[in-house]
């Protein structure tokens, strides 16, 4: 349109910038997330506290995910039982199946898969809703009415994610063990007494604790990333669609990266 928009000349500077773009982009992104997390934390402790708004998010993230998480937990437990029985039969270790399933569910499967389900269901919903609110100026309207959008919109979502993912992961674990029991004991004729006994002897409180710690961190990360993409969405309906996709993709990637980091820190293998 105007003279300011002349095409940029290629130069050494822009070439270098292009090469380092992925690295600087990643750093900027981490900065954005840290900034948003910090501001949310500050606002979380400032009055007014809006109970209703928070309850609505607990409902959305938690209650509405119960069925889905339960379903995925059930099938994960069942598949795991079949696979473990099949594998362990080769060296006559079928009696370990209950314990092994419970161990892997509590340390890995429950927190990781729950977080992924929450990212897919609640995270996409958060990003789409916030993105829509951004593009229809609702976030600006909040600001104009002297209400902090971070406090009003982000804090309840991030807190709800952080609180609900561990609860859902626990549910996932319990239903998953139940599913393994059904398949192993009812279907594949494992001994119920041994199945239960191996869970008792192999599963330590530490295992459950590690699962819960992971779930808390994943819940925080997933909702923070979802909020970030929705909150800073731009470019109308197309932009909101892209923001939603990015929210889910990066939340899931984030879960796996954090999972590795947390596992190395929390698991004394060396």
């Amino acid at each position: 349109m105007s003279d300011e928009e002349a095409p940029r000349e290629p130069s050494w500077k822009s070439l270098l910038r292009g090469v380092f773009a992925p690295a600087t982009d990643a750093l900027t992104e981490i900065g954005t997330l840290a900034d948003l997390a910090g501001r949310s934390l500050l606002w979380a402790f400032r009055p007014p506290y809006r109970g209703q708004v928070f309850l609505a998010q607990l409902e959305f993230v938690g209650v509405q995910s119960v069925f889905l998480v339960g379903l995925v937990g059930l099938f994960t437990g069942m598949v795991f039982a079949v696979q473990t029985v099949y594998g362990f039969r080769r060296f006559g270790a079928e009696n370990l199946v209950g314990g092994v399933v419970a161990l892997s569910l509590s340390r890995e499967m429950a927190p990781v898969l729950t977080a992924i389900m929450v990212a897919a269901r609640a995270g996409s919903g958060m990003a789409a809703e916030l993105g829509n609110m951004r593009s229809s100026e609702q976030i600006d309207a909040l600001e104009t009415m002297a209400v902090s959008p971070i406090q009003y919109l982000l804090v309840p979502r991030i807190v709800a994610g952080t609180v609900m993912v561990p609860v859902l992961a626990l549910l996932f674990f319990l239903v998953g063990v139940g599913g393994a029991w059904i398949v192993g004991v009812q279907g594949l004729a494992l001994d119920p007494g041994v199945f239960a006994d191996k869970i008792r002897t192999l599963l330590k409180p530490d295992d459950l604790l590690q699962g819960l710690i992971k779930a808390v961190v994943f819940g925080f990360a997933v909702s923070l990333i979802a909020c970030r993409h929705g909150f800073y969405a731009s470019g109308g309906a197309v932009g909101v669609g892209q923001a939603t996709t990015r929210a889910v993709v990066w939340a899931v990637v984030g879960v796996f990266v954090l999972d590795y980091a947390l596992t190395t820190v929390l698991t004394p293998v060396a």
Partner: protein
Amino acid sequence: MSPAAPHVVVDRLVKRYGERTVLHGVDLTINRAETLVIIGGSGAGKSTLVRHLIALERPTSGRILIGGTDIASLSDVELAVARRRFGMVFQKYALFDSMTCFENVAFPLREQTRLKEKEVRERVLAKLRDLGVEHAAQLTPAQISGGMAKRVGIARALVLEPELLIYDEPTSGLDPVTSRTVDDLIEEMRERFAVTSVIITHDMVSAFDIADQLAMLIKGRVVAQGPPGEVLTSAHEDVQRFIRSSGVEASRLEKRRRRTPAAELAARFAAEAPVGHPPP
């Protein structure tokens, strides 16, 4: 703030998005109880300009003074306090679609005042009635027409009776009769509370009718500014083209109503409430 000092001053405001300059040094002065109407082509930067007035955008350079204070210098908390005295009608309504229309209009009252629920109810219904949309109170924004949404948006901006009201195309999408009702409301707010208004509009009839000052923005520059009569007869080529294209004859435009001069309203208001607005 003394009644003589301007309420809003825009001082050499420049706004760039990346490489692209949207506002090239805009200067404006608006006195208390005056109505400034901004006209100009699509994409001229009108919305961007008014968004600066309530600190939704940060200037690239230049200043915005409200009541003598540079709003860019305010902290988050100070800004929140200052914003209680602003209201804005958004171009795209910006109603919260998770709430009913009633809750939308009640929102600023519930957030910023300690009014009893009964009083909130009365005020909200009264505003909805003023705008002829009380039957939409229990509907959500998705269930009402664009024109109704616009009116609910206006009700929400007016309900706190702020000192500075910004309207981004309040009458676009409204039928002519409703548009005049909105003009009347804007005037009424001015007469009752000495409200300073900034209005973006493409409606030349209403622009001429309610403006103390008219400013024409073209490609990020104010090309003409002054009392409507002067601007309409300005020799500036862009201004003349704009007015010819608007389909109204400049010679036939006239003020329909008797208006109390801004200075008189401001003085009366300052005498009644020397420290600004009495808390609602």
